[in-house]
């Protein structure tokens, strides 16, 4: 029972015109795969959406050949201004088809429609629009005059922001003059295939964008392919390590966006109303399946009880349910595997002495769901304070002094994101200086923008996506 009753307001799936079977998108056309196929299901209903091809080494090779041909024959010879025009076209078509993409993303991923509608899809369009303008201005990318594209980029993206991660990868790569072979995650390939249609509508030259669907084996084939010049990967630190090993000695450029265990630090002078909202969006946005989630709350000891009470009250008002419903705040967990992982880590958190509280949500019978959950009484050595859960689970720790907050925040092999909540600007800036994290949000959290670089320190990976830094990740040379 929610605190207010709303009538259901589901977004219609009638806007979609899906195929029953999707192959790969290679050389500008949809082609059959040479291997097996797999189904993508909707995580909120477990209903079948469509069938996709599991990319084989042969499929990946075809895609790389198409990308190389397009690079040598067309894309590298095109003027920057013309590359820009193609990217602007793509940005516009994403905007035109935004509703369709939002519904498809929600269906395939399980995240609430209000997120895909207001964040994922508009940001994906913005990413193409931002990088489009760079394509004819590469001399200003900070690498000196006449920087060169790298060639063919192999890109592997996760399931948590399927189309947005595609945009983060493809937009800068194309703007810099590369061609790409991209693999979407095996649980969320749908919007990548709609994007392939968008490439066709934009009349993008064949082979500039190639999309090969599949799971880990397909990704490995991309990473190991000898004719790929750049690997860009977003995903787990474990897989990122494997990629770093594989590409050792090959001279391939690499960008790795890996895991995180972001600290969200709340000082006792913080504007608490905003802080509570920020803590909640920091960890419950996209069901916490966000690499930069603020999954460790560090709250100053004297306001701990008040903050926890407010969080419980606020979490009690969140609506968990049909992701296509416009009033839904908490959608489904992306897959059974992920739900099992979250469940196991939460059980471990309880076993290690953390005090668990979960919002009293009605859990639908079908699909993969986990209620918003808090852990209090967490020690820094506890699993829930150390391991990335990638789910709607917040671990709450306390501190007394800024120095203690900084030490605890940095006490992790990760270094992707952090948050600071305080009314005192000088303290925010001093603490921000000391945090070893690539993105720091002060009195806000989980904000993304194509102009703003994103990426981690330490085991959260290397390289940046977004901004001028994200562009230079796809360039080399240049005369300064």
């Amino acid at each position: 029972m929610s605190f207010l009753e709303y009538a259901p307001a589901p977004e219609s799936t009638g806007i979609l015109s899906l195929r029953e079977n999707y192959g790969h998108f290679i050389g500008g056309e949809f082609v059959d795969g040479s291997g097996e196929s797999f189904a993508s299901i909707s995580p909120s209903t477990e209903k079948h959406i469509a069938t996709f091809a599991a990319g084989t080494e042969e499929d990946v090779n075809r895609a790389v050949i198409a990308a190389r041909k397009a690079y040598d024959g067309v894309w590298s010879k095109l003027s920057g201004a013309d590359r820009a025009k193609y990217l602007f076209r793509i940005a516009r078509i994403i905007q035109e088809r935004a509703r369709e993409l939002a519904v498809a993303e929600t269906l395939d991923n399980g995240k609430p429609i209000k997120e895909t509608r207001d964040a994922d899809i508009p940001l994906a369009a913005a990413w193409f629009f931002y990088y489009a303008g760079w394509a004819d201005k590469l001399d200003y990318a900070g690498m000196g005059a006449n920087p060169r594209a790298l060639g063919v980029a192999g890109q592997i993206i996760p399931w948590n922001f399927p189309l947005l991660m595609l945009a983060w990868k493809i937009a800068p790569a194309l703007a810099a003059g590369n061609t790409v072979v991209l693999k979407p995650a095996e649980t969320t390939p749908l919007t990548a295939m709609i994007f392939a249609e968008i490439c066709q509508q934009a009349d993008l030259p064949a082979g500039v964008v190639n999309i090969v669907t599949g799971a880990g084996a397909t990704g490995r084939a991309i990473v190991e392919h000898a004719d790929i010049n750049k690997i860009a990967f977003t995903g787990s630190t474990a897989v990122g390590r494997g990629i770093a090993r594989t590409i050792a000695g090959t001279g391939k450029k690499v960008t790795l966006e890996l895991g995180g265990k972001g600290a969200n630090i709340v000082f006792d002078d913080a504007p608490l109303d905003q802080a509570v909202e920020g803590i909640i969006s920091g960890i419950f946005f996209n069901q916490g399946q966000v690499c930069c989630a603020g999954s460790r709350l560090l709250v100053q000891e004297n306001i701990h009880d008040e903050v926890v009470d407010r969080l419980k009250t606020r979490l009690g008002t969140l609506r968990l349910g049909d992701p296509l419903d416009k009033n839904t705040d908490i959608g489904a967990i992306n897959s059974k595997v992920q739900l099992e992982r979250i469940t196991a880590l939460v059980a471990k958190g309880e076993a290690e002495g953390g005090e668990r509280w979960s919002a009293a949500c009605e859990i639908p019978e079908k699909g993969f769901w986990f209620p918003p959950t808090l852990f209090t009484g967490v020690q820094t050595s506890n699993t829930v304070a150390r391991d990335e859960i990638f789910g709607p689970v917040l671990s709450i720790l306390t501190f007394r002094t800024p120095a203690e907050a900084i030490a605890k925040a940095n006490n992790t092999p990760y270094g992707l994101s952090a948050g600071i909540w305080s009314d005192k600007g000088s303290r925010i800036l001093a603490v921000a200086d000391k945090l070893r994290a690539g993105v720091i949000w002060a009195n806000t959290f989980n904000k993304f923008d194509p102009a703003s670089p994103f990426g981690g320190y330490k085991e959260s990976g290397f390289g940046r996506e977004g901004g001028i830094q994200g562009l230079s990740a796809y360039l080399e040379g240049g005369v300064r």
Partner: protein
Amino acid sequence: MSRLAVPKTYKLFIGGKFPRSESGRVYEILSTKGDFVANAALASRKDLRDCVVAARSALSGWSGATAYNRGQVLYRIAEVLEGRRAQFIEEIVSVEGATAAAAAKQVDDAIDLWVWYAGWADKYAQVAGNANPVSGPYFNLSVPEPTGVVAVIAPQSSGSLLGLVSVIAPVLAGGNTVVAVPRCDAPLTAISFAEVLATSDVPSGVVNIITGKPAELAPWFASHADVNALDLAGAGDLDWVDLQIAAAETLMRVLPPVEGVPVASLSRLTAFTETKTVWHTKSLI
């Protein structure tokens, strides 16, 4: 010459002190003519680990110093090196077999390199960082920050002083601390150079130098969880791909080997930095 010379004992440089190797090991350094010049300390894994501890403890002070201060310290290195120019020329001639003119050029180039990188200390953040025009009421700034503790293998067949300076100067200019393995067969200039560092206001532990065998030491760097970056500039003759594979375990930043002396460049400096982006809300007024 009738006077009996007083030869120097060459030791390691760790945490601002000059200890012998804890292993008690030394190796002979000969002149190009085959004459005995000195026994250099043959550093061990334990020495290396001590260096990393020293470099880690020195990091917050050095990275937290003002950029102007770091620039002045690096410039001071150039000043002190200039004052000991003759000594370095003599050592280079003796051990590398270089002509006096070539040795003088090497020392001059090394001095000039310090001056060049010293000037970057308070400028690179302006070139590599930027304000970002995000779509919303936020102040958004990206700044490069030091990566942390950097291990470097200096060039093994180029000028022993210039090669070392080329790899440690950019690391220091970025605000990192460093553990360096100098050229194995000509390590004496490196230890004499440590004396320059020790008298140039460089805080203890910011630079640590251990003489010894790169093939023995480098794997311990690559697998050390408290080393943030590894510059393999002089590791071309080692199994450096294996080192890069080992370094992947902690996602250590790795720079591959280069031929000869690395060219002075801003990209060599920024290779040891991490971009931090801070979003700060703007209030509605």
